[in-house]
């Protein structure tokens, strides 16, 4: 639209365009200023900081890649929190998505009272982690907690849970799954409600049973939703913090110390800002790589109708 051949109108057009540009940028100026000041600028600082020895107060000292070599070569706690995070992630993703699918299938059927059940399953998702962490902290008390009380009634001696380095992580994972299930449930429920009815009718006519319809129609049609959930659940579980902070503070020992908790302690507890920034960028690299791989390998299993 640049070469409009009407010379005597050009100044007006130019003025109108300049005004439109000004108005547009005025509308987006709050968010542009905000993102530049509170995200771009700190991101640049963070990249720089990851290459320094810095406590956030005195002048940073450039150390090149030493933070990174230190983390991978000489920091067993970093390696352990990394492993703990992978444990947490690998256990919680299939559980949340799997049980979320079961609940979505249950809620997809239009029966009386379904809204109550859907709300009940979703309630923990909107509840704050402090309240949830407290309740489950007391539930998991070995001697007089609810969980071992119930196990005791069916004759199973319960473990020490949060004070056991073996059982603390499973306990935290259970609570996290319990709290987080509402999200995949809602996503999959929306997916189920959007499936074309014709497929199911023709399958019925062909004599497909309920299980076959689930296996060969419903699940393949939901694969785009599963991909979306795998990507988002990976990103959120790899950054779990709140429940761990409230329930175990990373303990016993470092049994439940996870990635973000480790960053939190280094940055805000020990003042190791450069070191913590390096960890943040390794986290970014891991998330970016896994997301990329999930996206790339979707052709193998995701079905687009």
């Amino acid at each position, binding site marked *: 639209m640049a070469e409009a051949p009407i010379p005597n109108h050009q100044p007006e057009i130019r003025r109108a365009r300049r005004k439109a540009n000004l108005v547009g940028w005025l509308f987006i100026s709050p968010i542009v200023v905000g993102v530049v000041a509170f995200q771009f600028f700190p991101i640049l600082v963070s990249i720089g900081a990851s290459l320094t020895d810095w406590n956030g107060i005195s002048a940073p000292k450039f150390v090149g890649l030493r933070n990174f070599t230190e983390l991978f070569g000489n920091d067993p706690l970093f390696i352990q929190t990394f492993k703990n995070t992978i444990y947490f992630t690998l256990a919680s993703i299939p559980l949340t998505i799997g049980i979320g699918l079961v609940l979505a299938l249950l809620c997809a059927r239009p029966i009386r009272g379904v809204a109550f059940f859907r709300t009940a399953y979703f309630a923990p998702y*909107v509840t704050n982690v402090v309240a949830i962490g407290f309740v489950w902290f007391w539930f998991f008390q070995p001697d007089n907690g609810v969980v071992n009380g119930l196990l005791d009634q069916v004759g199973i001696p319960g473990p020490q849970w949060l004070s056991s380095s073996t059982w603390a992580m499973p306990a935290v994972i259970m609570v996290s799954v319990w709290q987080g299930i509402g999200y995949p449930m809602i996503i999959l429920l929306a997916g189920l409600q959007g499936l074309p009815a014709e497929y199911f009718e023709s399958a019925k006519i062909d004599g497909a049973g309920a299980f076959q319809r689930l296996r060969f129609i419903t699940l393949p049609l939901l694969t785009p939703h599963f991909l979306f959930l795998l990507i988002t659940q990976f990103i959120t579980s790899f950054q779990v913090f709140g429940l761990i902070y409230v329930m175990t503070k990373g303990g016993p020992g470092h049994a439940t110390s996870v990635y973000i908790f480790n960053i939190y302690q280094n940055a805000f507890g020990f003042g190791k800002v450069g070191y913590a920034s390096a960890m943040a960028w390794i986290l970014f690299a891991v998330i970016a790589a896994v997301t990329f791989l999930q996206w790339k390998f979707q052709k193998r299993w995701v079905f687009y109708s």
Partner: protein
Amino acid sequence: MRLVSKTSQYVVMSLFAVIFLAPLVWMVSASLRPEAKVLSVPPQFLPTDAQWDNYRQVFELIPVFLWNSVKLAGLNVVGILIVASMAGYAFARLRFAGRDAAFMVLLATSIIPGIAYLIPQYIVFRQIGWVDTQYPLWVPKVLTPVFATFLMRQSFLTIPQELEDAGKIDGASTFGIYWRIMLPQTKPALAAIGVFTFLESWNDLFGPLIYINSENLQTLPVALAQFQGEYFTQISLLMCGATVSVVPVIVVFLFAQRYFIQGITMTGMKG
């Protein structure tokens, strides 16, 4: 033939409902029990002889925390709705140089994990004296609602052009068209973002944890975690506090569930 009969479906659904609700029911009932009976063996889920005095004691402690939570949630909701709707409107309906590039850059920032910029942010805020104030808990959030802007843009894109044209013919300014004609058309999106923002602000742990040291500035959920040994020495009182911290969220959720679920599915899966 269905995979399961209706009756067995109700049984399964009720079992799940118990699993998801029992801990919340226990929290409320523990808040009403005498301290000695909070952790009884075998476990009790329903309160007997309710100790309403527990709540009286807790309400001597928590009004300031409750007010901080309400105030911050309000600032975040109003601020984010204004900033995100203005930007969403501009990205959807206005033509100006650099618009699409600016939108892409905003979206691109959302792939960086928050922790990467939270650390330098903290150092900058400490430098300008914002640590132990409530500014870090709303100013940076209100000015960076990338996700909400994306949602608002989607919503503004669906409004028919004729409405906007009618406003232009009447001689309304761009701001007038946005504020009086277009914004009222996006109520569902505004509601969804409002509910999301409320919950996020109310339930935030990380921000108040790293920024607030003074007790009179702390939010309710984080005050419970931070001052549990100091003020909330009894489990029953802690559970009162936890219950009070959950009730506003459950109420908002019950009233606005539709918008909340709409918001999740809107952001989650498009087509």
